[in-house]
């Protein structure tokens, strides 16, 4: 089993290497795709075995000081690896036609090389039980991510996005080095400590470093600066991998790190809960204000990471207050949402890629009426949109339901110190409502109505090799939504891996209502299909020649339809205090107004409003200081020499 796992891992990691030999022709990319699929199949067998029985462990000596090659597959790792494998396989298949070598001779080979490398590095990272191995895999993943983002490095905005990502990820890596060095001092070896083996006393600094390092990768709100640009710049199937899977390694780090401690201080949970709520609400509010479909999806990643962090925060609070029910609901909600977000966000990125492929633009307002021309892409996008809005009967609802139940559950203990954690409930409701509004907007503006551009009117459906990966991801979303109990055993084992306590009977009771939720989901699906079939048959002969009722106006044009900005406007105004949307253009005045233009633009809250001005100000100040110091007067320079010598003398005397 272990051999099979390592074999699959190596196959995936090196999948881009053989293709380097072929500059022309499609043999290289076919070989890549086959190798990735074979590797994924190889890894699936040990993964399924883990879900059924216990975990796997591999220990080998490693010629690095203090390094020890320890790989372990437990249920906690398995919940992260399962969506990873599916997304990697779907993305590789999708890339065959989305990024063919024939059209992208300059960067196709580079993209595939790093696609395989980042997948392999993430697998190693999720399996590693040694700090050095973990950090090595982390760094390979971070650098491969940079090369995936800068696939089209001839464009300046792509280079800019890659640069910001590179800085952000290395700030994170730096704090992780600090974290693991301190942790190594704590327990005397670079191997990961056993679950619940460390006392929490005096580990506030450790938690701070972990939050900075892992939170930067996950994209929690003030640390999300690299995320929107990077996800927008990468090719769609690479964005799916980055957004669906890579940012989750940050969550994995936080989950694994917190599992080391026997006692969890309450403020860890409160911090994560508050950060999660802020990420969730502001992430989705920023998403509503976007016009670029991939930037919009990237901001939704910030939102979903917020929901995941809220689940983890509730679980940590449950640990600190000794409420096992809260631990189960919070952590299983967190882990399930990690998997769910991986599935539906990749689905959305792939279907957005299919739209971009045929329309040739990432602007939402350049679409329109695509459901008629891209029937399947539209259907898959709709499924992903319902799932990400957390609506039944798809998987997003199941994980949000678990976190909701955790939030409500704190009320059941009278005068509990955690009573304020229930504020996560209205926060989740607001996030859910805003996400729904945002996806009604995207789906409505891109796929419904009349085409807004010639390109949208001429759009065509993508080839089957791009549609099947989306269908597979949608099926997985539906599966979790309609058969949630099939994951119960894995989730319960993961929770007991995290707490270190063996699974107890309360676990099953807390997840039991999922059966009824799924049953209602089934009735919903069947009911809608039956009634829809009846209505469809009844209306089959109805005429379809008339235009939409224009309220008396007889010459409607596609440009008169509601656009993405007009749809988002009323919500953006509500959040104007935080978003600071910029609006350019004048009011239309008078009976016969002149031609007017209007545009709106919402810069990022932290990057464009905070960091850019701050660093520009610092650079300007230092520039002025340098001009003042280095003023070309020799006497001044001599004076500096004297000043330095005097200072040194005083220092020596002290």
């Amino acid at each position: 089993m272990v051999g099979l796992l390592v074999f699959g891992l190596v196959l995936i990691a090196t999948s881009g290497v053989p293709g380097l030999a072929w500059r022309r022709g499609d043999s290289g990319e076919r070989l890549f795709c086959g190798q990735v699929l074979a590797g994924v199949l190889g890894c699936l067998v040990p993964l399924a075995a883990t879900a059924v029985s216990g975990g796997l462990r591999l220990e080998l000596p490693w010629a690095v000081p203090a390094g020890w090659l320890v790989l372990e597959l437990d249920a906690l790792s398995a919940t992260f690896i399962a969506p990873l494998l599916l997304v990697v396989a779907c993305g590789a298949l999708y890339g065959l036609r989305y990024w063919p070598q024939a059209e992208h001779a300059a960067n196709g080979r580079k993209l595939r090389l790093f696609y395989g490398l980042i997948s392999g590095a993430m697998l190693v990272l999720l399996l590693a039980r040694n700090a050095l191995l973990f950090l090595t895999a982390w760094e390979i993943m971070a650098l491969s991510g940079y090369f995936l983002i800068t696939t089209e490095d001839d464009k300046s905005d792509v280079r800019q996005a890659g640069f910001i990502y590179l800085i952000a990820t290395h700030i994170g890596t730096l704090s992780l080095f600090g974290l693991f060095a301190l942790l190594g001092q704590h327990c005397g070896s670079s191997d990961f400590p056993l679950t619940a083996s460390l006392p929490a006393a005096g580990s506030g600094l450790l938690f701070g470093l972990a939050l900075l390092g892992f939170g930067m990768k996950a994209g929690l709100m003030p640390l999300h600066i690299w995320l929107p640009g990077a996800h927008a710049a990468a090719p769609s199937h690479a964005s799916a991998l980055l957004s669906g899977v890579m940012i989750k390694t940050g969550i994995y780090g936080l989950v694994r790190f917190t599992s080391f401690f026997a006692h969890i201080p309450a403020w860890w949970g409160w911090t994560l809960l508050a950060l999660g709520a802020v990420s969730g609400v502001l992430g989705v509010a920023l998403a509503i204000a976007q016009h670029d479909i991939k930037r919009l999806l990237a901001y939704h990643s910030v939102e979903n990471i917020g929901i995941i962090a809220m689940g983890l925060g509730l679980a940590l609070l449950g640990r600190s207050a000794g409420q096992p029910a809260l631990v189960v609901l919070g952590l299983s909600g967190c882990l399930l949402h990690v998997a769910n977000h991986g599935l539906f966000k990749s689905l959305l990125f792939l279907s957005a890629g299919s739209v971009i492929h045929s329309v040739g633009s990432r602007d939402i307002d350049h679409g329109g009426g695509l459901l008629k021309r891209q029937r399947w892409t539209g259907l898959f996008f709709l499924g992903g949109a319902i799932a990400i809005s957390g609506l039944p009967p798809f998987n997003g609802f199941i994980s949000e339901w678990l976190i909701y139940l955790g939030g409500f559950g704190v009320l059941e203990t009278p005068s509990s110190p955690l009573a304020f954690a229930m504020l996560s409930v209205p926060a989740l409701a607001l996030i859910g409502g805003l996400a729904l509004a945002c996806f009604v907007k995207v789906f409505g503006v891109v796929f419904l109505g009349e085409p807004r551009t010639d390109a949208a009117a001429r759009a065509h459906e993508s080839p089957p090799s791009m549609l099947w990966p989306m269908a597979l991801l949608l099926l997985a979303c539906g599966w979790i939504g309609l058969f949630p109990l099939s994951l119960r055993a894995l989730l319960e084992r993961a929770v007991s891996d995290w707490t270190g306590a063996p699974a107890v009977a309360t676990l099953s009771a807390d997840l039991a209502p999922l059966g009824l939720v799924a049953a209602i989901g089934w009735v919903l699906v069947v009911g809608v299909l039956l009634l829809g079939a009846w209505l469809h048959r009844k209306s089959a002969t109805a005429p379809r020649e008339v235009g939409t009722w224009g309220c008396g106006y007889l010459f409607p044009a596609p440009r008169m339809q509601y656009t993405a900005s007009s749809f988002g406007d009323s919500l953006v105004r509500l959040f104007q205090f935080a978003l600071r949307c910029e609006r350019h253009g004048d009011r239309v005045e008078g009976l016969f107004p002149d031609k007017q233009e209007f545009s709106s633009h919402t810069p990022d809250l932290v990057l464009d409003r905070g960091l850019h001005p701050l660093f520009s100000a610092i650079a300007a100040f230092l520039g002025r200081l340098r001009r003042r110091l280095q003023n070309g007067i020799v006497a001044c320079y001599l004076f500096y020499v004297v000043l330095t010598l005097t200072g040194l003398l005083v220092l020596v005397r002290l």
Partner: protein
Amino acid sequence: MLGRIVLHLLVLLILSPLLPGVIAKTKALFAGRIGAPLLQPYYDLARLMRKEFIFSRTTTWVFLAGPVVGLVVPLLAAQLMPFGGLGASLSFRGDLVLFVYLFGLARFFTAASALDTGSSFEGMGAVREVTFSCLAEPTLLFALLVLACGADSLTLNDLLGPALAGRWHSGQAASLALIAVCLFVVVLVENSRIPFDDPNTHLELTMIHEVMVLDHSGPAFGLVLYGAAMKLLVLGALLVRLVLPLQTGHVLLDLLLLVAGLVGLAVLIGVVESTMARLRLPRVPQVLVGTTLLSAFALVLVLR
């Protein structure tokens, strides 16, 4: 349980069109008119079912999905909601979240089918609907939190169960009264009534719900109206149960009490519609944020 489900379905299917009729009659009486008969909504539904469809050439299958989901969702949500003293037919831990999110699904498809026509008026309606609802949703959940505070269970059936009557006589009465007001506002918003939306206005620019279904015709429009009436009944049942937590234990008496409560609610809505003007649209979000704060205040009162 099967008997319960059938009973809930029958109440919902038979009684729901009565409520819009009662509201219209109340408004007519206030205006000094005789008004349409009480059963007019039933006649309207029967007539619409016989009529033919007209489709815009812009529309796709999503256009029909709106009415369909809008009808199926209240039928399912009604099973989770206790109908007066009758209790819910399906009840499990956390059903209240499913209840709220089912209506979210209906909203998604109603708004999507509005955008499917490509009409800017219907786009306007869709925006207003999703904006106002995402502000009303936290209010609803704050109200449910207040109810969950005292009860030691997380099912709608227990939150609105026999213990509720006792809570009205305890120190929590003020909180319950506050959330009753907030829930009344939620019922008005979600069912597009004055002062938030005027279902009878004839200017498309100012409509919310009506403008979203401008292009629906024939049986599809019938489903929209039927679904809206059912939604009013299901959300109304929540409010009625909160204000009238009486339970006789006899099925017929409980049913009668429920109907009386719902008719009373419809009359109250009619009175509000007759005596208030509709709010200016920019005011609506402010009122909704206000009720959210009010319900948060009710929660603080309970926790104190």
